[in-house]
Structures are given as C-alpha cells and as structure tokens.
C-alpha cells in the first residue's frame, strides 16, 4: 500500500475527532458545572453527600449494586403512547395516552440532569434494571420512617419487603449478638414469617456498614428543581 502516511494520519484523526467531540466537548460544557437554584432565592442544589452517607456510597460501590439498580430516571420527554387506565371520580376507562414511564412509576418527579451528579465520585448511573431506579429513593415517604426499618429488612432479606425479588440478601452486613440487659436500640425486627432469624436470646443488629449504606440510600434525593430541570406534572 503506497499511502502509509495517509493510513497513520487517518487512524490518528479518527481517534482524535470523537475524543475531541465527545469527551472534550462534554467536559467543556459539563465539566465545571456548579450547583444551581431553580429560582432566585431558592436553595442551591445539589447538596454534597457527606459523612455517613459518603461512607455508605463506598459500600454501595463495592457491593456492585449498579449491576441491578440504576440512578438515572428518564425525563418527561421519554414518552410512550400506550394504553393506560384513566381514573376519574366515578369511572375508569382505558385510553391511549402519552406516558413518561419513570415519572409515572413515581421513581422521580423529573428526569435526571448532569448537574445532579457533580458531587459524585463516580456517577453510579447503573446498567440494568433488575431492581428499581434509586435516584430519588430518599424522598419516598413510605421508605423513610425514622427507624429506616424498611431498608434494614430489605438488606437483611429482600424477600421480606419484596417477595419474588432477585436481590441477594446482605446478611453479612448485620451481626447477630446476644441480647444484653436490654435489647439494643439498633436491633431490627423481623416478621414472624421470616425463616432466617437468630436463635432465641439473640438479636440482629446492623453493622457500621449497613448503617452507612442505609444513610446513603436515604440521602439519594432528586426532589428539587434546577433552572434546566423543572418538575413534570
């Protein structure tokens, strides 16, 4: 082949071009995003995850939760025309309607945008949805009881809270200890139907890592608006 310099230059160019366009381009546009306020005078978001929640993020990362859970709710523009049941006061009927799935499922009030992830060490966007999207799980009232009991039960044995789930149990994040003078305030209650339970006289207590992980999960919150991301109805 005569044109070897062309070959080398061509390969080099085809390497540089997408790198400049995609990587450099996105870094220029998104690489120095600062937190923002939806309107003047509103609080500025996102907030930095610190303390226990930051330690929890490390646990989330090393357990590989991203292979089943995503943290990227899709926006309102991700609409699908499909048959939906529309309920009014007295009746319900099915009709074709545009639905934005992640928002309709209650996984988020709006799609995620780059500014939501500026404080993440590595954005844990996730690859597959074997489990629900977690980006806004912290604002889910049903899961946010002060004792976080839902989260602890879910980690100890996912079948307690989500029967039929394929999530593995994270029992190794808990320890079974003998009940002392009085039960530990951290001890988790297990329903009577739960087959894997400690022996009588023993209680199940979350370790530091479980507490941190749950703190992280409860910190996952996209329940705020940004100038470029307003809540969908």
């Amino acid at each position, binding site marked *: 082949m005569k044109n070897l310099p062309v070959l080398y230059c061509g390969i080099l160019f085809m390497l540089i071009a997408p790198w400049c366009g995609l990587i450099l381009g996105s870094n220029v546009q998104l690489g120095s995003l600062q937190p923002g306020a939806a309107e003047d005078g509103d609080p500025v978001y996102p907030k930095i995850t610190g303390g226990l929640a930051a330690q929890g993020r490390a646990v989330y990362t090393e357990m590989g939760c991203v292979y089943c859970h995503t943290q990227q709710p899709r926006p309102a523009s991700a609409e699908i025309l499909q048959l939906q049941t529309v309920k009014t006061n007295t009746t319900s009927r099915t009709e074709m309607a545009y639905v934005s799935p992640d928002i309709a499922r209650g996984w988020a009030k709006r799609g995620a945008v780059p500014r939501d992830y500026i404080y993440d060490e590595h954005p844990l966007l996730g690859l597959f949805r074997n489990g629900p999207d977690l980006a806004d799980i912290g604002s889910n009232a049903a899961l946010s009881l002060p004792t976080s009991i839902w989260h602890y039960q879910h980690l100890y044995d996912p079948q307690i809270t989500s029967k039929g789930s394929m999530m593995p149990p994270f029992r190794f994040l808990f320890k079974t200890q003998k009940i002392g003078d009085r039960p530990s305030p951290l001890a988790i209650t297990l329903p009577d139907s739960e087959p894997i339970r400690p022996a009588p006289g023993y209680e199940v207590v979350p370790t530091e890592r479980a507490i941190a992980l749950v703190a992280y999960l409860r910190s996952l919150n996209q329940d705020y608006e940004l100038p470029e991301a*307003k809540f969908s109805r």
Partner: protein
Amino acid sequence: MSDPSSSANHPSTPQHLPGGLAGGEDRLGDEALLNLHEKLMREKEEPSEGFSVIPIFLIFLGCLLTYLNGVYLATKSGGFHWDVYNENWKAGEGGAGAVVDPMKAGERIFLAQCKQCHGADGMGQPGTYPPLAGSPWPVGDPDRPISLLLEGMSGPLTVLGQSVNNSMPNVGAGLKDKDIAYVLTYVRNSFGNHDDPVDDGEVSTVRAELGSRAPWTPAELLAAHPLGAGKPAAAPAAASGTSPGAVPAAASGSAPAADASTAAPASAPGVATSGAAPMAGTAPAATGN
C-alpha cells in the same frame, strides 16, 4: 531465538499437516495471498462495462444513511446546548425547554398544599373543610383569595349551604408569588369553576400592601372583598368612587368583629390601597402608590 536446523525440519509448514485437525490445508500461501489481493486492488482501477467500483446499492444506502442521520443530527441536537435535554427543543424556548403551564404547575401545588383539606376533587369535607367546587370564594375579585392565602383565615362561615368553623393556615406566606398565582389560576379553573387567571404581579402587590397581620375572619375578608363582585371596573370614575373617602366606611363597617377592630386602624391604609388595587393600570395613579 530461531534455530535454523529446527526450522528446516519444522513440520509446521502447510504441506506437512494433514487436513481437518490442523485447520485444513492452506490452499493459499501468505505471499500468494498478499499478491493476489494487491492485484485485485490494482485491477479495479480500470473501468469496464457493467463494472462499478462500488456497488450501486451500497452507494445508495450510504447516501441515504448519511442524509437521514445528518438531518437527525441537525434537528434533534437541541442546538448543542448543554442544558437542553429534550430533543424536540426549539430555539427561543428557555433552556429548561417547556414553557410553564399555569394549570399544571397550579395542580402540582394544589396537590401538595391544598388537597389534604380541600380534597383532590375540591369537595372538601362537609362540616370540617369547605368545598372549592362551585364556591364563590376563590372566584371573582382575585384579591380575596390572594389575601386569604397570604394571611390565613379563622372563624365560622357558610359555603354552598355547608357551615364550617375552622382555621386555614397562611399557606401563601411560604409560597412564591408566582406559585400563588398558579394555584389560584388552577382553582379558579377547576372543579367546575371558571374565571380569569391570576397574575403574579397582583400577588406581589397584595403581599406588599398587606404586610403581616393576624389571620382574617370571614367577615373581615368579605367586607374587604365582597363575594360575587367581579374585578371592579377599571374606570377612573370608579376609582374615585372607591377613593380613600369610601374606605374608612368599609373599615368601620368591619369594626364590630372584635379582632378586626384592633387590626382595622393599622390596616386602613393597606385596605385603602388594596381596595383600589384591582383597577390595575389606574391604581398607582389613583392612590398615589
């Protein structure tokens, strides 16, 4: 590293290997492979009949793909802005994309703030919380519901034949002007109601005039903004008709209410200006704001 003696006897040359288990005999040596294909490349430089350097369909496909993708790239890239996430964004819209629909925004606020008491269908709870559906309170003079939201209300009232005696917190104090405007627009156009939308300019005017005061009683509020009255006519004659001369009468008219009497003198200037406020364009001139 290579041992000449072993390479000469090396059985790895094609002819020495039986077929099948060694991947088959090579029918083409490496040099022959290279030379053959080089010839093929060179041969193609001479055109002949019926010969096309690149198959026609491939050219067609390539052009079609390039064209379609080019159009897609040009139209669905949101102007290559960093803050456009909707591929259907049109130039001229805000970076956030969609223009806010007051009804949708209002509904969201209603569901968050008002639904707990007044119900998602605006029917309230008989005896406890008054209904909004068909109620004359949110419609008509917008200053009435604005003032109500900003300061709250406490006391007995009757709406659509239902009597309630309850307190409504001043939910508007924590809401922005435009949010109050959205939610009132929503309420005024839902549950069977139909009336003009509320502007956030009106809300900020009312807010500035009222300042902070004790919650209204129903009688006070009705005195300031009677039911059934639409927006007062925006005529200067009408403005003078409701000049400060008329207002003290209204203020004294509400005096019998015990809590209103203490509030009235302080609020008289406020009442005066708010009474004149509905004459939007003329108000500043009339009351010398």
